[in-house]
């Protein structure tokens, strides 16, 4: 397992380098010049040249990239062209916000999605099963930003019970996390149901029933632990997505998280900031996936002890 982890981490390095290179190349080919943007009002060629020099944008591309890589290995992505904020500081600042949103959305999605999925599986074929499944597919199918806007109007303005923007205090995160979590709740409910149904048909469930175990214990203990493996894969990746920030939700609710940082960096062609953000997102994504894969071993003794038995 250790060697597996090491191998995966090795691949991660490769992926991160690839991503930084793509980001770099993309920003070179995409039209748009951060300097021209800075000098919106009175851009003349000399001024532009001067600022380009200050930012080191006049160096040959390979040297610019090499300089970037040199910094990146020390986790120093430089400073933002515009805000002059150190990129890693900006990342940490935005990350703090995104983590809160992600955790709340995740808790919301999991707290709604998984029980609904279990419930739906247990009540399979009943009216309530259809209702839950239709709701879950609506959750998956409604565009999140649209849903967010409607939530704002209903709960923020009409009912006036929740804040519609901002990010201080838990209450501010309620609407965004519902808007963000709705589709994940839907997909979690669906995967949970499918997975539970599959497990509920297994022989060992019959065994557990034959033992005289209660319905609760059969479902929550015997079935759920087995059904968790595909569920964990999904919710793990979902959590990864949430942690990388939702540009749309953050935009609607004015939350300065990672998603907003990335969009701003992209629209400003702010190379250091974009590189930092993209690498952060990729890193979180890769690591979450690795953790998900490793968690199989925790959930499934067949994988954990696989080698021992063979």
């Amino acid at each position, binding site marked *: 397992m250790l060697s597996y982890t090491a191998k995966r981490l090795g691949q991660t390095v490769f992926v991160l380098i690839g991503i930084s290179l793509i980001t770099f190349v993309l920003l070179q080919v995409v039209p748009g010049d951060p300097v021209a943007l800075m000098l919106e009002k009175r*851009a003349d060629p000399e001024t532009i040249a001067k600022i380009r020099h200050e930012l080191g944008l006049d160096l040959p591309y390979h040297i610019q990239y090499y300089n970037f890589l040199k910094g990146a290995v020390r986790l120093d992505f430089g400073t933002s062209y515009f805000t002059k904020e150190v990129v890693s500081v900006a990342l940490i600042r935005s990350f703090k916000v995104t983590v809160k949103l992600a955790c709340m959305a995740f808790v919301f999605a999991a707290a709604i999605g998984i029980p609904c999925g279990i419930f739906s599986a247990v009540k399979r074929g009943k009216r309530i099963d259809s209702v839950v499944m239709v709701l879950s597919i609506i959750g998956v199918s409604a565009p999140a930003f649209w849903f967010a806007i409607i939530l704002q109007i209903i709960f923020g303005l009409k009912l006036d019970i929740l804040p519609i923007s901002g990010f201080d205090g838990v209450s501010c995160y309620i609407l965004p996390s519902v808007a963000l979590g709705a589709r994940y709740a839907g997909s979690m409910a669906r995967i949970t149901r499918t997975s539970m149904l599959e497990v509920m048909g297994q022989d060992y469930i019959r065994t557990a029933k034959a033992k005289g175990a209660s319905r609760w214990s059969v479902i929550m203990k015997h079935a759920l632990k087995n059904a968790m493996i595909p569920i964990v894969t999904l919710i793990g990746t979902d959590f990864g997505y949430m942690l990388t920030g939702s540009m749309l939700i953050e935009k609607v609710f004015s939350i300065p998280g990672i998603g907003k940082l990335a969009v701003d960096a992209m629209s400003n062609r702010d190379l250091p900031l974009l590189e930092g953000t993209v690498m952060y997102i990729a890193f979180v994504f890769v690591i979450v996936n690795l953790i998900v894969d490793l968690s199989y071993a925790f959930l499934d003794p067949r994988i954990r002890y696989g080698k021992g038995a063979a």
Partner: protein
Amino acid sequence: MKKRVSAVALLCAAAMMLSACGSKPQAPAETTAAGAAGTEAAGTQTGGESTPGAADRTGKIVRVAAVDPQVALDPQQYTYSIVMKITDNISEALLTTKGDGSLEPTLLAKMPEISEDQLTYSFELLPDVKFHDGTTLTSADVKYSYERLVKLTKMATLLENVEGYQELADGTADELSGVVIQDDTHFTITLTKPYAPFLSVLSTAYTAIYPHEACEAAGENWGMTTLYGTGPFKMDSYQTGVGVTLTRFDDYHGGAVKLDGVDYKFIEDVNTQVLEYQKGNVDYVDVDPSIYPVYSENPELKDQMHGFQPTGNYSLGVNVKTYPDAKVREAIALSIDRKAICDSILHGTATVPTSYIPAGIIGHDETLPEFEYNPERAKQLLAEAGFPDGIDLRVTVNSKYQGNVNIATAFQQQAKAAGINVQVETVDSAAWSDMKKSGGIDCNISNWYVDYSDPESMLYPMTKTDTNSSFWHNAEFDQLLEDGIATTDSAERQEIYKKAEHIMTREDWATTPIYNETKFYLLNPSITGFEIDSTFRMFWKDADIQ
């Protein structure tokens, strides 16, 4: 059975959603009720059934919805209007331009004296003006601030007529030799040639005066963590993504300030900004003219909406490299229905211009007819120019400004009648500035506001730089502009600029104005003493909360 149940559920869900956002016919009324109640609670009542938002106001603090500038609050470096909306309350320039275009001294004891040859200006500072850090304003701070403006390059050309500018800009000198300090409160500025708008330039936010020691010490943090000025409010905090809080500066040289502070709240999404206003969580919000009826038809909110006409306009620029024939450019100018845009798209809030130079500025000519929509004539001109079958026209707009996109979309339909097939291309700001520079824009819609009340501020992009993307140059026009700034007599200048304007918009047709807009904002009715005038600057100095 199963299917039926799910179908019912689906319907229910849909109905729920509709009804939730619905009670459609009364929706606006409800909105207002909530909004009005919110604002009222925020303003006049304390306690009771105050909305959650109203609770966060303690003392006389005005809350302004703003977009996060994401840059240092330093107009010498960043020219976004939001930066100035904030810093105008923190730092001050020597002079202030009033709504009627006249100047009045702010940090000066009296209006400067100008020498006979129009080259030397003598200034006398007010005594004992304090900066927020406690230091006293001196001539050295003025000199420092101007030198900084030049060194930071971004808006440096504002001072290009000051003696020693070129040397400082090139780095061959390390001071702006034209600014000569006599003593702590007296200094002179010498120009290399007469420059009529010079004093107006010194009223812009870019020429704000900073305390030189503190500013130097702060370095890159100037405008981020530290920002001192002589203004009525001092900056308490500036947090990216959160906002800027200003509190009253008790030693303000201009007398007592009534507000305790101003709180700029960063709300990214403009729609969310308005929602927060309706909820009573902010006291000021900008409103785009395209949504004018949403508020004008709302009995509660319509009185809270205020309009002002900024000095500037929306215009259509045509790249003369792509369309070298003035006839084609004129045809394009004739194929945009300004009246329809003003009356319908902008709900009557805008007016059709008669000249590019807006009203209130030297050179504006009211006697001219409004620019017309005449697709027949446009067709004829195109035929004369050799395009009897019409032309394809790529119109590029910056997606950041929804107003520009709206005009382009309307233009697209209007131009069909003239045989012009418009293709709208929206690009983001960065691509936009790049394309402007590189000549990648065939035709654009953009807006321009003056930095100072002078035709030069309106027209200089036409000739000084190529950044207006039309790449139009006309020797006579350039000469007229040179003459214009060297002339001080207003009547003479009026003639010069009228002539320049005629060349630009009635002969060469490289840039044609589309409309003069009215900008709107919603303001909590409990706030008094606040108004935005045509200078488009936000001063909270005299405001109060009843």
